[in-house]
């Protein structure tokens, strides 16, 4: 499944943020209250799986303001899941990349791996979790859309099969070339993501990471890792060979006679 966010349609009302909070039972922290994009940007947090960030920029010499919904991109080939050595993060066949706290070791390598810097860690808990958007897995199973998409009053979020969403994005770009920039963010980034964005302002002005490689991130790792068995066997064999070869020439020595404990008083 996939979602298409049309940045031109978002008015920054944050209904999606509230819906996410209610559906997933995310309590605001102490002294935190409900800060909105109007008060200044909030960042993703363990209890904020999606936020709206506002960006001021210029277009045709006019000051404008755009709102960007942030959440996990649910990559088609997620770097976070490939980095996790405990299989706590996994890609489900339907699309969501989900986290299972029972398996997690808390090593935070997934956080190093995510090319979008999405994951959040519970730094103040003795047994912290790594949290992020789960694409409302339970709702998808019931055939519903994610909570955020279902409440958007302006139709900025469209939800459906990812292929259809890519098609829809292309339609909008071609039918309105004067408005949109012509780029669909998420089609190629990190090998493709389930969340797609179209916009009338270049993405680099909206805080998107524009240096994300197009090659699926796990492939980099795999290119290196797949050598492991060969190195193991080859290097092992080479060492054994050298060991046997040089052993014959080496003199016999009585190792045990050679060493002794040292005196701590320096005698």
């Amino acid at each position: 499944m996939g979602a298409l966010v049309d940045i031109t349609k978002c008015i920054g009302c944050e209904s999606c943020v509230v819906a996410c909070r209610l559906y997933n039972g995310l309590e605001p922290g102490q002294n935190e209250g409900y800060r909105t994009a109007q008060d200044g940007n909030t960042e993703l947090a363990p209890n904020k799986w999606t936020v709206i960030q506002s960006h001021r920029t210029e277009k045709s010499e006019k000051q404008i303001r755009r709102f960007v919904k942030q959440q996990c991109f649910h990559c088609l080939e997620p770097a976070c899941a490939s980095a996790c050595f405990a299989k706590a993060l996994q890609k489900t066949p339907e699309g969501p990349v989900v986290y299972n706290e029972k398996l997690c070791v808390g090593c935070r390598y997934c956080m190093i791996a995510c090319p979008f810097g999405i994951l959040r860690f519970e730094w103040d808990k003795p047994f912290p979790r790594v949290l992020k958007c789960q694409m409302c897995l339970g709702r998808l199973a019931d055939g519903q859309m994610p909570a955020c998409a279902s409440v958007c009053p302006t139709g900025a979020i469209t939800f459906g099969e990812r292929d259809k969403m890519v098609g829809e994005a292309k339609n909008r770009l071609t039918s309105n070339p004067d408005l949109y920039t012509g780029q669909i963010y998420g089609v190629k980034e990190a090998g493709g993501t389930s969340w797609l964005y179209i916009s009338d302002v270049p993405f680099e002005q909206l805080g998107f990471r524009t240096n994300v490689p197009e090659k699926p991130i796990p492939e980099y790792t795999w290119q290196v890792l797949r050598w492991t068995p060969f190195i193991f066997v080859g290097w092992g064999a080479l060492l054994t060979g050298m060991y046997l070869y040089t052993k014959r020439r080496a003199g016999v020595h009585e190792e045990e006679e050679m060493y002794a404990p040292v005196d701590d008083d320096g005698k």
Partner: protein
Amino acid sequence: MQKKHWTFRITGFRLLLILFVIAAVAISLYRFIFGLGSVTNLNDQWPWGLWIGFDLLCGIALAGGGFSTALIVHVLHKEKYLPIARAALLTSLIGYIIALVSLFLDIGRWYNFWRPFFFWGYHSVLFEVFWCISLYTTVQILEFGDIFFERVRFPSLKKILHATMPFWLIIGIVLPTLHQSSLGSLYVIAANRLNPLWWSMIIPFFFVWSAFFLGPAMVTIEGTLAARAYRREPELPVFSSLTSVTMWMMIVYFIVKVIDLNYRGVFSQAFNGSFESNMFLVEMIVFVLLPIVMYAVPSIRNKLWGVFTASVLVVAGVVFNRMNVVFTGMAQSAGGHYFPTDWEILVTIGMWSALVLIYCFVVENFPIMPKENLVSHESSMTAGQSVHM
């Protein structure tokens, strides 16, 4: 020749180290109860800090002395280096234990630490690191068992260990080769995050190669310090002749580095005056080229001060490189800010203090160092002769 009692004299300096260890233990307990955020400055932009960057990455690299001397002495049978072999193994073993302890401190859900043994996330580099480090620490304990049972008599066990030792030695070189390199591979995944001066598809090669050439330098430093502490004659001829291993490997390292930068078309970034480029230049000039030159000049490498200083540069350089990968190179993409808290630093100091204390205890109670009067026993001492040439 066996001593009868376990000895460990408490001096003022050792008392200080013990205090550091106690402080580190106390802080760790606090961290386990109140979470990582309560003692560290780590945050979502900087999920890995001092403990992973220094204690784990550097600790393991510094323990490289174990596998490079094992290769030189036990596989290539260059027996003249035997006098330093056991001390190198010991430092390496303690280094690994420190690294494992700091890893344990750093993982959030530590009661789950065993999971990767059963849930095979084999597509993760961390999986390889985890397995190799655990296995290699076990192997090192077995290797050390051979020495242990010379002091604590247990003939039947010692015999089995001795007979299987060649196998452990070889596994004990293959495993660290793999995971020294995979510590580098950990960062392959940070393709758009680590600065291109350090990110490379062959970063695993740079990591394992530098861990290897660091070994002899580490042995030199450790041997010199131990000789001073215990008022012995340092094994200068061994140190001097080991420099050629390090020097040639560093020359290769430097050449490959330049070729790699050129190949990826980022060579010019090394000179663009940014913070990253300056750190990179310091790394290359002060910590790679300078020691190569010092090792190349006989009048420097044959003097104790010379070989010692150059070795300090080599070791500091590898630490500097790892820090650049973990911090300098990631700074731009991470945003945010990280500097370790006093607590984090204290824990690190405590762990390295523990290393010194354990080292002293073992050296004073087990046959690790070569006997001083080696030359007089000429009959069986081929190794001894070459040392004292």
